[in-house]
Structure formats: C-alpha cells, structure tokens
C-alpha cells in the first residue's frame, strides 16, 4: 500500500514545507490552527485529568451539551461532504473533478474531529469496546456506531481510489448510500426518543440529512472558492452556487415544518417551540437560511460564495447546539430548587474542545493542501 502521496504528502514536499514553517512562512491560518490545537489539547487534557465534574457544565438535567452538538455538527458536515461529492460527480463531472479528493478528505477528517469531541463527553470512553462485546440491537446509538464505522471505512476506500485514479461508479454509489444510512441513524438517535417531545419526530432523520448537506456543502464551497482563486479556474464555483441554494431551500422547508408542528402541539416539552419562536425565525431561518440565500442570489462572486458559506457554517453550528440543548429546557421532573426552565452555557473546557476539533480539521487540511497531497488526483482525473 502506497502511503506517501495517498494518505500523507510526499516526503520531500512535507520536509520542504516544515522548513518553510520553521522560518515563519507556513501560512497564518496554519499557525492559528496550531495554536488552537494546543489550546484545545489543553481542554481535552483537563477534561480527562480533572474529570467531568470539574470541567464541563452538563448535568443530570442537561445530559448532552456542546460536545455532543459539536459531534453532531461535524458528523453532519462529513455527511454533507459525501452528498456534495455524489451530486458533484453525477451532475457536474468535469467542473467538480479537481475537487473530489479534497471533498472526500474533508469528509474523513470532519468525521474524526466529530468523534474526538464525542469522546470527551463520554463518562467512560475507555469502554468503547463494549459496543463490540455487548451490543444492543434495539438501541439507535448502537446502530449509529455500526454505520459510523462503515461510513469512515467506505470514505477511506473512496479516498484511496480517488487518490490512485481508480474511481468507480459502484464505489461512488456505495459511498453515498452508507453515509445516507449513517446520518439517518444519527437523526433517529434523537428522533426515536419518544419520551422527549422536542426530539421525537420522524422528520428529524430527514432534517439531519439536509442540514448535513447544507453544512458540508458550505465547507466544500469554501475549499472550491479558494481552489478556484489559486488555479484561476472560476468554473469550479458554479456547482456550489447551485448546490448551496438547493440545500438552503430544502433546510428552509424542513425547519419551517418542524416549527409549525412544534407550535401546534400541546404536549409537555413542545412549549420550547413557542418560547424560542422569535429566536428560531430571526436567527434559525432569517440569519441562517434567508440571508445566505440572498447573498448567493445577488453576489455571484468568490466573495459572495465564501461569505454565504461562512455564515451557513457558523449558524448551522449554533443550530446544532440549539437542537441538542433546547430539548432539555423543560425539566422532565421538576423538584426542589430546579428552575422552571433549565439553562445551559458551556464551560471554557467545552469551548476548547470545539476549538480543538475545528483546529484539527483546519490544520490537517491546510498542511495536506500546501504539501500537494491532492495534486495527483487533480492531474489525473477519474
């Protein structure tokens, strides 16, 4: 198995980049990402050394917080990259081809970054082997683990194929179907909890799929935008304008349906939809979906695409946090000094975990890009 040039950059290019890096010519974002990773590593270390009780703000009332929402976010970004890869290959073949390996690579590292965040939230991450020796097939979380493993494996194979110019239609379809099942499983992990009205919905797996497509495509659009600037090939941008608009419109419809269903129900727990109505309409729909769509409509340039995509990435991150945390807003059994509405704000350590995940993705991608890891596939085609 060829390692250099497929998984990691060519040895001489890597060494030459490190010598530039030492001289301070590694690129500003790489240095920032490295600092972010060091700080994030401190956050991770603190959580594992000091324990959850002293570092994170989740509790029995809010059992899932920022780390879980970060996991969901990155997992969906990963799924979105696969969507983008599939649609790009199917409908924009020549225009999309130079980006294929970058998109799949991004899908892989975001899946890994998401898992890193998840690992810091588990009470006993060292017991993950229990998924293999003591599985529970009735649990959506068990199936999530199965499909997540399959997803990363299939992405790895697809990535190797693209890097070695051995791309096949069968693999393209497989690497689309498996992630669709994976991210539907993630949606069902929340949507199947019948006892939590805020989550419980058959709409949620579909909502997750399209939200993933939106965020993943936004990330790929940024890569495409900078790639087009470097190569001078502005045709690369065209597919992303179209895909981004389709994704924004789909998520708009699903978000609208979710809010309408929430507003019209009287079940305990659904009042969250009423209480967060203006927040959802102004930020969740206006800021997160309508504004990026308008930017794409009226500013069909490099700047327009990057601005719209950055806005989508940021607002989708907040949307994932809201989705996870707002489910616990109304306490299930209110007793003693528990407030009527539970609030949650992440601790510094939890924020550092997010910083670590973001920095990991940025650092690995930028080093791979700067050392020409994706050039082989770009030259050859598949």
């Amino acid at each position, binding site marked *: 198995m060829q390692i250099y040039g497929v998984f990691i950059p060519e040895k001489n290019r890597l060494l030459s980049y490190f010598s530039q890096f030492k001289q301070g010519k590694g690129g500003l974002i790489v240095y920032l990402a490295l600092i972010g990773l060091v700080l994030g590593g401190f956050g991770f270390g603190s959580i594992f050394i000091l324990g959850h009780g002293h570092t994170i703000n*989740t509790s029995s009332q809010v059992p899932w917080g920022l780390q879980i929402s970060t996991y969901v976010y990155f997992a969906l970004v990963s799924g979105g990259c696969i969507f983008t890869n599939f649609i790009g290959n199917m409908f924009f073949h020549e225009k999309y081809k130079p980006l294929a390996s970058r998109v799949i690579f991004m899908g892989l590292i975001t899946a890994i970054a998401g898992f890193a965040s998840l690992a810091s939230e588990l*009470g006993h991450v060292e017991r993950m082997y229990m998924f293999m020796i*003591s*599985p529970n097939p009735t649990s*959506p979380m068990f199936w*999530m683990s199965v499909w997540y493993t399959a997803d990363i494996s299939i992405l790895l194979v697809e990535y190797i194929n693209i890097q070695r110019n051995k791309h096949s239609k069968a693999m393209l379809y497989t690497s689309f179907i498996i992630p669709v099942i994976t991210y539907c499983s993630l949606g069902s992990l929340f949507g199947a909890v019948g006892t939590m009205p805020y989550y419980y919905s058959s709409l949620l797996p579909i909502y997750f799929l399209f939200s993933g497509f939106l965020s993943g495509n936004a990330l790929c659009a940024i890569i495409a935008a900078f790639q087009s600037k470097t190569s001078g090939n502005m045709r690369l941008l065209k597919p992303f304008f179209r895909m981004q608009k389709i994704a924004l419109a789909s998520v708009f419809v699903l978000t609208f349906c979710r809010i309408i269903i929430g507003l019209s129900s009287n079940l305990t727990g659904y009042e969250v939809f009423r209480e967060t109505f203006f927040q959802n309409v102004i930020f969740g729909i206006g800021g997160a979906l309508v504004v990026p769509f308008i930017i794409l409509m009226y500013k069909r340039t490099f700047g327009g695409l990057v601005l719209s995509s950055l806005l989508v990435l940021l607002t989708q991150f907040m949307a994932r946090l809201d989705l996870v945390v707002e489910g616990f807003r109304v*306490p299930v059994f*209110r007793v*003693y000094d528990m407030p009527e509405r539970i609030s949650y704000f992440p601790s510094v350590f939890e924020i550092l975990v997010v910083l670590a995940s973001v920095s990991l993705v940025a650092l690995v991608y930028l080093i791979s890009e700067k050392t020409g890891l994706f050039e082989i596939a770009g030259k050859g085609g598949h």
Partner: protein
Amino acid sequence: MNLTENRDILEIMQSDLERALKKPRAERRWAMAIDLKKCIGCHACTTGCMSENLTPPEIHYRPVKEEELGTFPNTGMRFLPRPCMQCDAPSCTQVCPVTATYKRDDGLVTIDYEKCIGCRYCLVACPYGARSADVGLYFTGDFRDKTYEVENSGEYGKRSKRTSHWRSPIGNARKCHFCIHRVEKGELTRCTTTCLSSATYFGDINDPKALITKLISKVNVMKYKEEFGTKPMVFYLT
C-alpha cells in the same frame, strides 16, 4: 375491608418479603405502591435513601415533588415521591447501546457499572427523570477521604468506591434500584422503613397474599405517565 387487620404494615410487608425470598428469583416481581393521601412531604424517604446509598451531590434516587394546588383560600399541597419506576417496558434498557442497563428476571431494572460507557442516552430516554449522571462531585469539594463521599452501599451487589473519575460509578448513570442489596438480605427498602406516615408499600406482586398486591387491585390506583407505554411498577394510591 381492613387489609392490614390492625397489624403494623411494616411487619406485614416483612413477612411478605420473607415469603417472596423463598421463591426462585424469576418468580418474583418487585413493585412499590405510594399512598399519596398519606404522604406528608417530610422527605424522610429522600434522606433515608441518600444515607443508605451514599448518593453524591445533585443525585437523588427518590426526590419528592411538591405542588401547590388551587388558589387562596382553597389551597392545598400535593406530594409526589418518585423512585425509579422499574418499568416493565423500560425505555432506558431499549436505548442503552451496550446493554449496561437491563431488566433482570425479577423485573428490576439494573445498571452494570462496569459496562456503562457514560453516554447518558438513558437519561434522555427516561420519561420520569429517574436517572442521574454521576459526574464526580463531592459534598466536601476535593477532600475525598470522608466515608460518605467514597463508600458505596453495595448497589446491585457490588461495592465500588468513588475515589477517582476513572472508576465507576463516577462517569455512569445512576438510579434507584429498590434497595435490592437490602431486599435480597431480607430487609425492606430504606424508603419504606423511613416513611413517617407509612405511605410506601413494597413487595412481590406475583404473590396474591402480599399486601401490595391487594392494594394495587383497588380502583384508586394510578401509574405516573402511563401514556408513554413504559408499564411502570410503581403504583400511586389516590
């Protein structure tokens, strides 16, 4: 009809318990009944439970909810003690990805602390909020030398000290287990014995002669959040 025949209810339940323990475990079905008319909201059950199970801060296996009813001058207080419902169709066992929480053959919903990965999915799935996350807090801050901070009552028949966040039960989900460590030694649950107004009944509902079986066959019995289909084994007498 006088179900207790003027005998002390603790004595009746004690003899019911002894009779149940003579049967094979799979033939027993532990259940609890709480008489809401008798409950005075003294929280003795909560306190008794805490001292029995040495629960850490923010973890209550049996809290008592207090509700003010009506408007002045027609007001009243209602108290709702909430142990784990030991459901017959529990949602927590269904969602646990590693079968760390499971239903025993006597119906008791159990947590295997050594298997639990601390994902907290069971906390999300429980409609009663009966589960808590042990995140490793101590009443005395970081002074972990106090017996009540680190010792364990032997929940589920196992003793594990809370000395580090790497060791269970820290990092795990925790909940009421009907004091099974006491019950299997022939002692009633701690909340039953500490209840000042004798509002808590415990026993084997597979035994037609048991006091609890007679009580839950009456018309004034309700189950909490029955609509979720979890078939709770805690009955409220109203």
